[in-house]
């Protein structure tokens, strides 16, 4: 499956036809130029330029009818996303909040009032596992999903079925059953013309887009392989508190529990895996991974992975990620081209450099934060009715990360097809805020078997 899903392909074909008609309209029939590249030695071998479809990237969203957002998941990222949404342009507000914890809802209600002057009425603040549905039904236009990823598929589908535009955080699920639910709901969103942005903010970052445009102009030749890294320190964890139930502890400590986060290769490293998918234009179809748990304190996850990912044409992506303090770190992507190399990271300068290490071109950040930019793009697309739906693309990137995780957990080679047809579903079947006997049965996976 290519990055351009069925509906987007249709849209692109339509756009191309309109473009062609426009060109003929201004009388350029005699010009047979097909839009040569702006740099690089075009035509010295068969370099095939891809059709890229970037978000609009305005400095601010255009004005329009007020858009009311509902926030589902009011922790750190949900609070951040709420602020980013309001900052994206005029006439944007938040009118409903939902979370499983009262303190989280209270905090964000307070923060919105204090920092943005936005008052969310008490009757629009909901607590519990069913809070998401109440937020969706609270008269909102846009839903922001920022709970732990396990809950995303169900909430995304509910939002789409209620015909809401959606901003949702990556990753979009923690297991294959959830991924399929997201892709199906994404196709429904397409048919309803809903706009969906997914928190893979590098795709809304000027530096990444400018670098990709150059790469697509044949600046480094064909991409031969890629290395993608998220090697950093320990993230965070919560120790159990006497008044917390088992479920409360797991959710407050969610980045350490595989069923909730998908493990850190999915939860965090999906960003870099997504960049490889984006830049190379297709996703890996096979994974062979290693990983282990060395220093993580709580939960049942690993804290390091190294995965060899293979594309259908045999090209490879090396993916490594780690959450251990005191090691050498790096969070970036590196693309090996037939002519030169390209490297990118969220902070710092993106570069194209030659085999001697000399910079050929460099790319700097734009003043707009990518976390705000993604909301500017969402609002722009809603108000100007520009198609945008990143759900399926991010679902595929998430699935690649899940494929890497399953391979490392089992020690076996795992294919994308296997994952797409897998009934793997993590976590408890029903959600109760209480002691559910999950932790006593939780095990850190050990690959392979003891016997020969």
């Amino acid at each position: 499956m290519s990055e351009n899903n069925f509906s987007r392909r249709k849209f692109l074909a339509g756009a191309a036809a309109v473009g062609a008609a426009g060109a003929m309209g201004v009388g350029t029939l005699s010009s047979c130029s097909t839009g040569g590249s702006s740099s690089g030695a075009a035509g010295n071998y068969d370099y095939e330029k891809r059709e890229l479809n970037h978000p609009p990237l305005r400095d601010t969203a255009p004005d329009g009818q007020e858009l009311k957002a509902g926030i589902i998941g009011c922790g750190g990222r949900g609070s951040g996303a709420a602020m980013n949404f309001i900052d994206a342009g005029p006439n944007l507000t938040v009118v409903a909040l939902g979370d499983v914890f009262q303190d989280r809802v209270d905090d964000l209600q307070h923060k919105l009032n204090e920092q943005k002057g936005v008052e969310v009425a008490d009757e629009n603040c909901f607590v519990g596992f069913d809070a998401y549905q109440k937020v969706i039904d609270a008269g909102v236009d846009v839903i922001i999903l920022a709970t732990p990823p396990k809950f995303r598929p169900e909430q995304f589908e509910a939002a789409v079925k209620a015909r809401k535009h959606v901003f949702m955080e990556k990753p979009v699920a923690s297991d294959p059953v959830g991924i399929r639910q997201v892709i199906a709901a994404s196709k429904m969103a397409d048919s309803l013309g809903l706009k969906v942005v997914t928190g893979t903010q590098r795709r809304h970052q000027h530096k990444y887009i400018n670098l990709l445009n150059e790469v697509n102009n044949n600046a480094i030749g064909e991409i031969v392989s890629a290395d993608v890294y998220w090697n950093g320190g320990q993230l965070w964890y919560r120790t159990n508190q006497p008044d917390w139930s088992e479920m409360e502890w797991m959710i407050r400590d969610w980045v350490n529990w595989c069923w909730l986060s998908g493990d850190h290769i999915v939860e965090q490293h999906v960003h870099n895996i997504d960049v490889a998918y984006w830049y190379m234009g297709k996703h890996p179809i096979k994974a062979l991974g290693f990983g282990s748990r060395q220093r993580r304190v709580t939960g049942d996850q690993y804290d390091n992975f190294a995965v060899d990912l293979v594309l259908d044409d045999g090209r490879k992506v090396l993916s490594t990620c780690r959450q251990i303090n005191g090691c050498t770190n790096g969070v970036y992507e590196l693309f090996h081209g037939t002519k030169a190399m390209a490297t990118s990271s969220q902070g710092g300068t993106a570069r194209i450099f030659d085999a001697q290490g000399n910079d050929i071109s460099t790319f700097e950040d734009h003043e707009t934060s990518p976390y705000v930019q993604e909301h500017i793009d969402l609002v722009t697309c809603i108000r100007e009715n520009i198609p945008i739906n990143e759900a399926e693309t991010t679902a595929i990137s998430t699935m690649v990360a899940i494929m890497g995780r399953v391979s490392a957990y089992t020690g076996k080679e795992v294919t994308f097809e296997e994952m797409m047809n897998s009934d793997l579903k993590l976590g408890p079947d029903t959600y109760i805020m209480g002691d559910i006997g999950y932790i006593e049965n939780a095990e850190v996976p050990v690959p392979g078997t003891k016997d020969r």
Partner: protein
Amino acid sequence: MRKKIGNFLRKRLLLVLIIGFAIGLLFTIYTNKALEYTSTNESCAMCHVHPHVFDSWKLSDHYDTESGVRIGCVECHLPPKGEGYLPEKIEAAARDIYGLVFKDSADYNWEQKSTLEYAKKHVFKASCVGCHENLFPLTLTKEGQDAHLYYTQNEEELRCINCHLHVGHYDPNALHAVNVEFGSTGGAPEDVFTEPAEVITHEDYTETVPNTTISFNMKAIPGGTFAIGSPEDEQFRDPDEGPQKQVQVSPFFMAEIEVTWDEFLAFYSATAAEGRSTDTEGSRTEDGVDAISGPTPPYGQPDQNWGLGDRPAITMSYHAAETYCKWLSQVTGKTYRLPTEAEWEFAARGGTQTPYFFEGRPKDFTEKGFLGSLFGGTSDVIDNYVVYQANSEAKTQEPDVVEPNPYGLKNMLGNALEYCSDWYAEDAYEQLSDGATNPKGPATGEEHVVRGGSFKSPAGEVRSAERDYTRTEEWLKTDPQMPKSMWWLSDANNISFRVVCEFDEKTGKK
């Protein structure tokens, strides 16, 4: 004179144009009318005299739709306009008129024409997706989402009717769901066998399966040496049937008939697993449980609604067939297993080295059609022994409709394909050494050998030497479950198997 007319025409150019336009317009309108008229349901009904077609249409989802729109014949049975509508219409009309004039509708096998294989020829995917533009409507169920997602990933290989075969013509027996009730007879059986058959010499016996009402005949197959494969000049021979090698086979027992539904269901009810086994993380490393865990419930109707009883059990996977043998061995205390390819062919030949174990050349039975009837081709002999394309009515038949071969075995050459334990290789006989004893085929492979033709096979493919192999992916293409069943095949309705029992110390070998 000519000049005059020319002048007249020039002066009345406008008139001429208008008249021409009018004629053209009328022509267009009437052609279109004719097309429309011949595309109404009533006009279809004039030729399509088979009675069930309109009744079943009126009971179908496409007649009584939620929105009240009624879907007519040509909307499914012709491609959309501009996508081959006219050529197909002309072809279909020609076919129908020929049928109406020269044939009797009672001679048609309408049941066969309703099967997926035939439906593919007269239902057009472009027509389905022409109306059903949105494969992900908000009302789609969870199962529907998964199934349509699978479709979008395999659009080229799949047709809508792979799953939605009965939307245009209702079939009360069709089931599109997990078939939890399959094979249950309700109530406990009365006279169950308590002991398995005791076998002390290499002679025919009747196995009795303890705790069931099931018994079946086993034939003692003598050991011997024979030439496996076919000579190069055999009609319809495929390259994988050679080169011929001399092969020695030790004595064994073989079931008289293909495993029946009654037999297979005894296994199913004794071992059926409620839960599903998956190949993903967690359960991947689990292995080796003492009790035999048998099939999960099938999806849909494994017997194709042809009936159970003595008809061969079909659509089980190789794994299911193998597990059946393990279970049968456990409950009878003997060594039951699938035959090797050499054992199978030795038994099928029954001491003969000719294309069939009965008289006749393959071409005698294949020229039966138009030319055959002119030149006196006959199918009498083959009809006595083989259920195949020409006489099967497109389904499996009960074993008593045929005569046995010289070893007393029925349906070796037809009715249903049979699994063998060998891995398939096109050059398997190349690899075989002359004079080999009890060869077991290549050490590894991807697909297993299947032998004997089926009710779908033409006469050329029910020869004793004919070889074929499993198609793991193709045979599971449309299973909508995730993961796909490891027990039941969604897309192979002609595969069965037959057990052999080893002649060893448990069966009287000294």
